[in-house]
């Protein structure tokens, strides 16, 4: 992403949709996390993501100039109009998958927001400066869990490794336009995996399409749940 001028609507939608879909997916852990403290933690991280999403989508709407606000962009777009990466829409068959996805996403967001915070566009820089602090905390949280699960029992190790193996191909998409950033990302993620006694998977299959609206079916189900109330009862308040 260019750091020199005003961002495009499409760039803001990529950032905002990543945060929005991640928030919705994390929120699905509410009342279901393995322990109460983790329930609170995942809900808090989801709330941080939602806060960033609101700011980014509001900016995208203002820039677009078509009268769409954050709610219109979040609730009235269809799946093919979302620009989120595939990583955030993946389901969570178990807690290890959530942690693997959060580790990969938070490492990316921290690096990306850090650069945007130093960018020339004042509004985006101020959003990124806020979000980068929160991303660092998310990354730390995911790191601690990766270590605990990877270097834990035989069972937790097996499941954490399986999650890392399964999720590993998806972040490739984040670096398609920005291969240099992947080096910095690897220098965060690889030491965590090593310390957690987890094997770093080989690079190979690199699924893509989220940035151009070609998603997995999982996004459609997620959006159906997220959007149904707003679409059934436009402007509902309580």
């Amino acid at each position, binding site marked *: 992403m260019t750091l020199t001028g005003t961002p495009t609507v499409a760039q803001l939608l990529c950032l905002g949709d990543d945060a929005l879909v991640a928030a919705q997916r994390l929120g699905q852990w509410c009342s279901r996390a393995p322990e109460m*403290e983790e329930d609170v933690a995942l809900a808090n991280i989801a709330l941080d993501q939602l806060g*960033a999403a609101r700011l980014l989508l509001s900016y995208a709407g203002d820039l677009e100039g078509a009268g769409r606000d954050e709610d219109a962009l979040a609730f009235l777009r269809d799946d093919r109009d979302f620009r989120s990466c595939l990583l955030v829409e993946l389901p969570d068959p178990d807690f290890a998958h959530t942690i693997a996805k959060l580790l990969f996403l938070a490492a990316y967001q921290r690096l990306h927001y850090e650069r945007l915070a130093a960018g020339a566009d004042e509004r985006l820089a*101020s959003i990124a400066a806020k979000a*980068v*602090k929160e991303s660092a905390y998310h990354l730390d*949280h995911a790191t601690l869990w990766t270590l605990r699960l990877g270097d834990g029992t035989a069972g937790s190790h097996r499941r954490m490794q399986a999650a890392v193996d399964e999720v590993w191909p998806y972040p490739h998409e984040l670096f398609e336009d920005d291969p240099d950033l992947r080096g910095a990302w690897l*220098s965060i993620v690889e030491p965590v995996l090593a310390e957690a006694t987890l094997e770093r998977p080989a690079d190979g299959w690199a699924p893509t399409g989220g940035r151009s609206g070609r998603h997995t079916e999982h996004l459609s189900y997620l959006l159906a749940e997220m959007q149904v109330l707003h679409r059934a009862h436009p402007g509902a308040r309580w």
Partner: protein
Amino acid sequence: MVTAQLRRVAGSVVDPELRAVTIEELGILRDVGVDPDSGRVVVTITPTYAGCPAMDTIRADIRQALAVAGHPDAEVRTVLSPAWSTDRISEAGRAKLAAAGIAPPGPAGGGPGPGRGTAGPVALALSVRCPRCGSPQTEQLSRFGSTACKALWRCRACLEPFEHIKAL
């Protein structure tokens, strides 16, 4: 001076989730002034966390406080930059938080800045004192708490759990 009075009114609004302290003491209140063109009171605030759900209530409470003081058409603006830090919590605010059983934050320590390329842990204060008995023998139970800005701790001396505002 009028602006100082307005600031006292707006600044006296209590944080809805940390009811021991005002938005002035928390450093959420940035500026209070009067728009020279419209004559409306303009209050500028900044969120603690981007997703802080208390912001709508804070905005409404500011408008209500100013309406009671004779300014029914006050405008509340939100700015993000410079980003809020726990370093903005005043000494009076810290004392009130501690008195309410919430351990105030240590220095924010700069946070992640450009050039920090590794996944080092977020810097934590060396010891968090128990707000009830003052013991430094405390431990973190959960890195997240009942609101975005707090973590859950426990005192090993008096065994009481307590909340701690995370340094940010």
